Each structure stands twice: as C-alpha cells, then as structure tokens.
C-alpha cells in the first residue's frame, strides 16, 4: 500500500491513540503520591518511538520486557503488569 493509502486507513486511529497517551501523561502529572516503576518504564519505552528503523513496535516491547535469562526460583504471583521491575530475587 502507498503511504497515502495507509494514512487514509490509519491516521485517525493513530491520532486518537496519540492523544490518549498525552492525556494519560497529563493525568499522571495531576495525580498525587509517588508513581511506581511502570511510569518510568513507560517513559523509557516512549523514547523508542524516536528510533529511525521500522522496528519501533519490537523496540517498545523489548523495552518493557524482562531481559534476564535464568528461570526464577518461585512465582511472585500469577499475573503480569506490562513492565518489568528489576528485583534481586533469583
């Protein structure tokens, strides 16, 4: 597809998501108390958007991932939160 056709298909959707992210960051600023590691991880991942290569989705996902290699001793719970917090647990 041409860039023009892709814009016709996806610009409004991407625009809406972009404004949602901006509003989310504004909302975080207005909130009270200390944020946790997820906000730092989010800002770090945002920086991946400025990369030149067309692998931004992959870079954002990697930025939010646990990049350690060994299996851990015990499950801290069942769920995942979407960003990785470094711990000393092994």
């Amino acid at each position, binding site marked *: 597809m041409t860039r023009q056709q892709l814009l016709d298909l996806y610009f409004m959707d991407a625009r809406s998501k972009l404004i949602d992210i901006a509003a989310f960051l504004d909302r975080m600023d207005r909130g009270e108390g200390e944020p946790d590691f997820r906000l730092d991880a989010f800002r770090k991942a945002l920086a991946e958007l400025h990369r030149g290569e067309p692998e931004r989705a992959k870079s954002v996902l990697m930025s939010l991932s646990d990049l350690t290699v060994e299996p851990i001793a015990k499950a801290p719970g069942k769920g*995942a939160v979407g960003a990785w917090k470094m711990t000393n647990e092994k």
Partner: protein
Amino acid sequence: MRYIEPHGHMVSRVTDDYEAMVLAGCRAVCEPAFWAGYDRSGPEGFYDYFCQLTDYEPKRAAKFGLPHFTWLCINPKESEDTKLAEEVIALIPQFLDRPSVLGIGEIGLNKNTRNELKILEQHIDLAARHDQLILVHTPHLEDKHKGTRLILDALKADARIQPGRVIIDHVEEHTIQMVLDAGFWAGITLYPESKTTPARAIDMYEVYGGQRVWLNSACDWGRSDPLAVPKTAIEMRRRGHADETIDQLVFQNPIRFLGQNPRFTVR
C-alpha cells in the same frame, strides 16, 4: 469467508458465540486446556474438565454444525505446584484416544519459574512418547520474551521433537522472528488490550511472511472477541490482500498444521 478458530476457550463462552462464529464462516474450533480463572482443588477437577472438553463441549458445538477439537494438559498457571501437575499429567494418556483430541496444549510458561519449566519438560516428554502435536502458550507481557526463549530451548533440547509439529502461540513483534527461525509454527493472538490488534497482526504477516502462521482469538472468560479472526480477515481486505491470500492464512494454514493429526479431517 471461511475460517478455522484454532484457539478458543469455548467452555467459558455462551452458546450465542457458537452461532455467531458459524454465521461468520467458522468451519472448526479447537480448544486448548487452560486455567479456569481459579486454581482447581485437585486432579479430580482436571479429570472433570477433560471430560467436559472431550465429551460435552463437542456436543454443544455440534448443535451448530461446528466440529470441535481439543488439546489436553495442565496449564502453566497451575504447574508451579509440581505434585499436582504430575498427578494431572498422569491422567492425560487415558484421554488421548478420544476422537477429538489433537495433541498436548496449551503448555508453556507463565512466570518463567524452575517448576514451570520442569513441568513443561514433562509435557514435552509426554507428547514425544505419544507422538502428539504440541500447542505452546507463551507468557504474558513483560515475561513473554524471556519465556519464549526458555520454551524454544526446552523444545530444541528434546531431539524427538519436530519443530513443524509444534505451534508457539501468542507471538508478538519481539518473539515471532525467533520462533519462525527455529522452524516452529507461530500463532498470532488477537486481543482488545494485550497481545495484538488486527492491524499489528497483518503487519507481522506482511513483514515476516505467512507460511507457518495462524491467527486466533484465544477467546476466554476475559476481554476477548470470538469473532476476532473474521474481523481481521476484513481488515486484510482493507489492506488490499486478495481473497485467496486471506483464505490461506485463516483457513488453509490451520488445516496444514492441524491436519498433521489424521483426526482433523476438516477441509
């Protein structure tokens, strides 16, 4: 349009979903064993679940003329308790002869623990001993990349496993390449929030190719959409893909993989 739903947890969907799927062109649904949203209290709970998957659920689907197939295992969310997991694995062989069972799944990892890995290896061994296809669940969100690597290592370490008989499900942009490079099939899951959107799924198809890829909704009791596959087919049309290409991805590809088990006769 015709399509296969290769991964749907129909026990947690209402009967109207079956009707909607058939109306949208679904020709078969496959249901891997998974977590119920709570931990079962013992192996008996799994015995009953396997009966539901192999007996009751195919009958419910048949009311709409929809062939229903299943995969059996204890899911990684409950395999941290290795004693329970081993008891459940011992129950599985007696179900493998049932006519709608396609293989072992969805096995894999959840939080990438040593116990989960140990039970994954036991499932891989079970599949190899009984010459079964394998369907793998990869972990969620921040745990996916690490878990996918550990899973591929465990599969590659067992010389009896043929990559073409294993599908690694829930791939995303950061994991699809390593799965395809190692010769495995890759499943792309369409979810409203986590996993992928139709647009991203089509991006991956365009970038990485669709030879060994299927699409699924993985619809369950959470926010998910049993019509995600046909909706993505519509999106592919908007992206200029030919009907034959779409048919390859949503119908012929699942048949190529699942048809390796002679019980899967849908054509």
